[in-house]
């Protein structure tokens, strides 16, 4: 699919500029973090009111300390500040902030990538068909798309979650199954409904771009030539129209990954995530402690920002390298 020319352009743009390198470095780190979260994590991120191996207890933030002492009878050393045990402390229910940060990367990336793929799968065929056939078909299909666009994405997403619910799908964690990590959750919750919902509110962008491409490609003479020797519409769509419209779709897809990561974070912040292991949810949790323990909110916040920046940098790189209008200039 990707021609040599595109490859060489990608290489060239990459070597000429610092930003794509930065983006790639960031993204690779985040992906690494997400995959090996169980290995890198120090505590089970879901376990609350954690007791350490030595038996020291860390009551949840905000819980009355005296109650705790009274219940247990002994005097214990209590802290939610960073310690050697909890390097970034715990949140208000006593979960390890650092471990949750690692696991949060998983949810963001999975929703971002999966959501984008689903949006691609819906939007691209829709747009290609509308653009290729044109006329009434196009008219009707694009009005549907316009209606989708008329709603703000977040509002539409909330409404859809209201309809579909937000139950996550539990998927076994391959790293834990492989025995690489102990004491970590054996399955990871994937917010399937949320993923579907973000795809449903973003596919229209792919449809519009794909349609625009198909509209121009169908007038290319190679498409007419293919028709002239009797190629079926399906074959033309798959062999000519789709490959030639990929470039802007790829660029859009990278940008959409970032958009979806943000959308997921917003939903999670509002409490519509399906899993608590999400950066957005974590920001909400730490909100009450912004003055005293700001890192609880800031760490996942930084995670979101870095993920979005890295994907956007890569998107810019693709755009610069693939855009035929930019190509060839500046030489």
């Amino acid at each position, binding site marked *: 699919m990707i*021609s*040599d*020319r595109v490859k*060489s352009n990608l290489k060239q743009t990459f070597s000429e500029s610092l930003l794509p390198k930065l983006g790639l470095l960031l993204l690779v780190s985040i992906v690494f973090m997400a995959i090996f979260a169980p290995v890198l994590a120090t505590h089970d991120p879901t376990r609350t009111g954690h007791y350490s191996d030595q038996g020291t207890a860390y009551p949840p933030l905000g819980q009355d300390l005296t109650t705790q002492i009274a219940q247990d009878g002994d005097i214990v050393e209590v802290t939610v500040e960073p310690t050697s045990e909890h390097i970034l402390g715990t949140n208000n229910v006593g979960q390890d902030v650092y471990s949750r940060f690692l696991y949060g990367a998983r949810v963001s990336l999975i929703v971002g990538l999966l959501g984008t793929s689903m949006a691609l799968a819906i939007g691209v065929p829709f747009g290609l068909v509308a653009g290729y056939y044109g006329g009434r078909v196009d008219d009707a299909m694009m009005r549907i798309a316009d209606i989708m666009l008329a709603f703000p994405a977040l509002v539409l997403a909330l409404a859809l979650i209201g309809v579909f619910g937000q139950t996550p799908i539990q998927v076994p964690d391959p790293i834990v199954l492989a025995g690489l990590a102990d004491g970590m959750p054996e399955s990871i919750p994937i917010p399937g409904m949320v993923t579907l919902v973000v795809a449903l509110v973003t596919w229209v962008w792919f449809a519009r771009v794909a349609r625009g491409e198909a509209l121009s490609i169908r007038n290319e003479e190679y498409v007419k030539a293919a028709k002239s020797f009797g190629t079926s519409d399906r074959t033309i769509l798959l062999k000519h129209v789709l490959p030639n419209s990929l470039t802007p779709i790829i660029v859009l897809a990278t940008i959409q990954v970032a958009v979806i990561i943000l959308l997921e974070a917003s939903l999670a912040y509002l409490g519509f995530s399906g899993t608590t292991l999400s950066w957005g949810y974590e920001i909400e949790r730490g909100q009450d402690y912004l003055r005293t323990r700001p890192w609880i909110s800031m760490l996942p916040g930084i995670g979101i920002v870095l993920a979005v920046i890295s994907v956007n940098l890569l998107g810019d790189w693709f755009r610069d390298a693939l855009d035929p209008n930019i190509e060839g200039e500046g*030489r």
Partner: protein
Amino acid sequence: MTEDILRVHDLSTRYFTQDGQVNAVSNLDLRIERGEVFGIVGESGSGKSVTARSIMDLIEPPGEITGGEIKYRNGEFAETVADEHPNAVNGEFVNLLELPPNVRQSLRGTSFSMIFQDPESSFNPTLTVGEQLAEAVEVQRRASARPRSTRARTQSEEYSLGNFLLSTVLPSQKYITEESRERAIELLELVGIPDPVERADEYPHEYSGGMLQRAMIAQALAGEPDVLVADEPTTALDVTIQAQVLDLLDELQEETGMTILLITHNLGVIARMCDRVGVMYAGEIVERGSLEDVFDEQVHPYTQGLLGSVPDLEGATRRLQPIPGNVPSLLDHEMDDRCYFADRCPKAMEDCLEHPPEFEVPGSDDHEVRCVLAEMEYAESRAVPDDHFSETSRTAADKHADPDRTEDDVQPQRAEQPVDDSGGDRL
């Protein structure tokens, strides 16, 4: 024979691309007489457009004029610049390449004007044609109000954002004056646009292609230039409209006595319009002389090939005699030091493996050719063997297949294209 208005000597224009240096124009000599129509004919990628742009000072990076002289004869202008730029002045001639950009820019419109192939991109679609013409008039009028100072020409009042905002609020606040508007209407009439009064208030999209081309000519004439450079002025037009535009140029030239440099790939247009002709190939003028010299007494096999390729409209059907092969690469490292046409030439001889100088062709005053055939007869015995170039051209072809290069550098004409495309709306 009249005096020369323009002498181009040893002009070289290069494009410095990633893939190497493109020799778009190399060591080009040219002489244009006052009041004549000089034609440059060549195929795509031959450098004819770049030549025109070099003369107009419209070469943009990565392109650069790397050497030579462009000497323009204008006594008054020479006096004006003599103090500040003594190096540039030689008698009545001024070497334009020695002048700073702002002074050269001041010559555009008043001394040199250019018309382009695509009239549609030469007009702003949001302004009426009349307004745009009037604007051109205004610029020239203000410039000539203080003709003595070259600097003043470039420091006329600029169109500012303030003007723009005001003009949207107050309809009277226009950049143009009533005089300019009237002159614009005169110009439209001059170029044969019917009902110029009404037409002046129309927008470019209401004009047909031929009319817009006329309007562009009117715009170029606003400053009453000495030299009009017409770059493929009729290529985008249908034949009947082309005939109208050529008639118009002919009439205007007769009326105003201006000099026209006509760039085209169409040999018919050359024959119709030109007094003298230069044939370009691979960035050089390979043959030049009067129309008769080039069309009837040509020496260079490329000129012969070009004329033999044109299907005849009148004669009986005969097989065409095409030039074999393709347009050569203009990348510096792919150009051997030989006659650049030798690999396609049916009469290539051993002598052609050295780059030929310009020879004068006997029998005519002004007929010069870059081909050894001007001095010697073709001899079978000295012919270059058929496979001589196949090796080199083969490697060139393989290089072209190198996947890491982009389309632009494979063919010289493509390399030239960004310039061609963008130039339309620059002037």
